């Protein structure tokens, strides 16, 4: 048994090619992932893909340049510089095309990078006598055949890029988060953008020899996206992304040894699987968490039914009795009750449910909506008989203050619904100290007038006049109010709306 473990895990470590792959791959992965964080936040993933493809033209160009002028084969620094130039030319031409025409950014990227890539391919094949580049190697990469020069290129570009990102972290953060503010405080936004593009080009160049043109964009964005699902801060996202990059390389390399597969392919496969696992289990932004949240959220309709039914029974009600009234499964019902008691809407003692103060207010609000909807449905003749109640039962869940107030006003602030039941007064308006139109007030409430129309109202009413509300007359269309001297004033709907009061007492 230990033999198997040894040959699976430790034996590859003794191989030089594996060590180089591990070191080179990890360096490339760390720096790719860190830069990748900025890339995905700037939504530049496609651009990353474009840059990696455009490189081939630069590599071929650099190769030819040194070969023809100095007769040196495969001069690494020249190819690196060539790639950078190709990348920057691509970026500049993308910006140019989208600026001078109606062609949008993503289309411009697609056009320019395939053009530059094709140019590179043609260059390589035309000069195949001079250029000894294996196109397949370039496209697929060869992490298990990493040369020392590749390691040096990776290490140096990683060092440069990481230093730039760490030193100018705040500038990168601000420009990617809010470019307008960045510009308004005088940051050179365009320069920072070019710095980021250069960094992307550098890391892509250093990683291409290992994972190849096609997969490098995955190394750039996948670990970063995994980290994105787990972090609420950019610095932590970068650290996590770097860790995920390294685990992808380690996991992928072992995978490739065991399966005897392509190294680059195995790394990206591992990286993608890692992303999928995180997508499922991430504590806040993962699928499981989302599913749990949905499961734990209380169905609003059931909550409102419980509130209204309990208040119809008079605040305290036997649970079994209540459940018979509510057409939901026992499990949903029990869950709703638990959630509601957690939210402080009700208390449960010995199988009896008592609404709290907050619960009663909420119940009143929904009951008010229900009965106003009933009145409205009868008023417009949309339904009749028992249908009225059913339609209102559906519509009571439309109960935002504004809509309910609108119905209330439209119907002339009725006190009774069509079945003769009392429509609760509006708690949002009728609280002691609250200010509202007099028309919202109910019999027995006292208030002080704070504003009234300049003309048309009774001369006994003035700012500061203290009034007590009397009964509604004339089929609920006439408001009777009593002044302090006991005299009585009658107001119509329009005037009652126009008189604003501050409520001094709501006890009737």
């Amino acid at each position, binding site marked *: 048994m230990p033999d198997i473990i040894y040959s699976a895990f430790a034996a590859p470590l003794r191989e030089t090619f594996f060590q180089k792959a591990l070191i080179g791959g990890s360096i490339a992965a760390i720096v790719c992932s860190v830069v990748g964080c900025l890339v995905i936040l700037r939504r530049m993933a496609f651009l990353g893909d474009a840059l990696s493809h455009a490189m081939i033209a630069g590599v071929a160009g650099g190769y030819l340049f040194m070969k023809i002028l100095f007769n040196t084969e495969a001069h690494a620094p020249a190819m690196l510089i060539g790639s950078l130039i190709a990348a920057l030319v691509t970026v500049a031409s993308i910006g140019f095309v989208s600026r001078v025409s109606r062609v949008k950014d993503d289309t411009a990227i697609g056009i320019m990078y395939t053009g530059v890539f094709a140019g590179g391919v043609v260059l390589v094949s035309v000069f195949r006598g001079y250029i000894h580049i294996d196109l397949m190697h370039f496209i697929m990469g060869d992490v298990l055949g990493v040369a020392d020069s590749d390691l040096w290129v990776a290490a140096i570009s990683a060092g440069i890029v990481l230093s730039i990102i760490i030193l100018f972290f705040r500038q990168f953060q601000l420009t*990617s*988060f*809010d470019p307008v503010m960045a510009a*308004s*405080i*005088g940051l050179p936004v365009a320069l920072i953008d070019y710095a980021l593009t250069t960094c992307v080009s550098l890391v892509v160049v250093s990683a291409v020899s290992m994972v190849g043109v096609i997969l490098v964009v995955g190394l750039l964005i996948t670990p970063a996206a995994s980290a994105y699902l787990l972090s*609420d801060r*950019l610095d*932590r996202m970068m650290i996590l992304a770097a860790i995920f990059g390294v685990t992808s390389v380690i996991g992928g390399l072992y995978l490739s040894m065991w399966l005897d597969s392509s190294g680059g392919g195995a790394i990206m496969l591992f990286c993608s699987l890692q992303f999928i696992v995180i997508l499922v289990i991430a504590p806040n932004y993962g699928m499981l968490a989302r599913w749990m949240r949905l499961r734990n959220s209380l169905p609003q309709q059931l909550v409102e039914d419980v509130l209204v039914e309990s208040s119809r029974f008079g605040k305290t009600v036997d649970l079994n009795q209540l459940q018979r009234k509510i057409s939901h499964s026992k499990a949903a019902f029990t869950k709703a009750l638990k959630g509601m008691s957690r939210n402080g809407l009700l208390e449960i003692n010995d199988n009896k449910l008592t609404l709290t103060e907050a619960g009663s207010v909420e119940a009143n609000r929904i009951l008010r909506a229900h009965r106003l909807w009933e009145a409205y449905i009868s008023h417009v003749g949309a339904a009749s008989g028992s249908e009225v109640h059913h339609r209102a039962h559906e519509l009571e869940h439309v109960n935002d203050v504004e809509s309910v107030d609108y119905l209330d006003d439209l119907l002339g602030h009725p006190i009774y619904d069509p079945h003769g039941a009392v429509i609760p007064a509006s708690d949002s308006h009728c609280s002691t100290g609250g200010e509202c139109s007099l028309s919202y007030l109910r019999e027995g409430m006292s208030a002080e007038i704070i504003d009234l129309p300049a003309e048309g109202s009774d001369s006994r009413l003035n700012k500061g006049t203290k009034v007590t509300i009397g009964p509604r007359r004339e089929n609920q269309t006439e408001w009777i109010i009593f002044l302090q001297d006991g005299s009585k004033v009658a107001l119509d709907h329009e005037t009652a709306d126009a008189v604003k009061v501050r409520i001094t007492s709501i006890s009737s």
Partner: protein
Amino acid sequence: MTTEPAKIPAIEVENLTVSFGPRPALLNVSVTIDQGLLVGIIGPNGAGKSTLVKAILGFVKPDLGTVRLLGSSLDDAKGRLAYVPQRGAVDWDYPITVYEVAMMGRYPNIAWWKDPGRQDHEIVNQALEMVRMSDFKNRQIGGLSGGQQQRVFMARALAQGSDILLLDEPFAGVDAATERAILDVLERARATGRTLVVVHHDLATAAEYFDRLMLIKQRLFAYGTPRQVLNQDLLSEVYEGKLKVFSGMGKAEECHA
């Protein structure tokens, strides 16, 4: 507030013309905004409200004309002006906390090789306190309500320590209670002597919220107290009769005055 520095206007715009083609977005706009005022910019869609904001920020190069902030040219006045973006302009999924956003207000004052100092942390904490967002410091910004999000960005603007705050539609898409809370913060900021310029779309509340209004549609139609600006003739000229609701505005205005 001492009266002496108040004599220098917060914002001076002189003969500003900005164009993106044959039709100018702004034409010959001149306005002088005094310090310590809460000013609303109103006008129909496409009237050049945001172009004016961009010109004051220095993002668009005017064809003609100048903008001066507190007596200095735009280049010299960098940092004396803070900008609060529209809510729609921000990526709310960005991995950043409330505290970090507010700290961004200090970035202009932190040298690039240094970390934020103790004073910076103090200022940020005060700013969060002022907009009543201290309890949400470590929350990622996406989880906040619309009004809270707006307040975080106001905290950032306050932390910048700027004398002039420029807000782009802070009241867009928030409910009435949130609108009050935001207005409350604006008024508190004004009480510290700052000048606030707010792009606003709701004529109905404009009179109530602002000390001065600026009515623009390509040209500056009026700048003055709400009573001067919100008159029927002017509004129907600018909104070309697309405005029916304001027959009652005159009355409301008389009460206000």
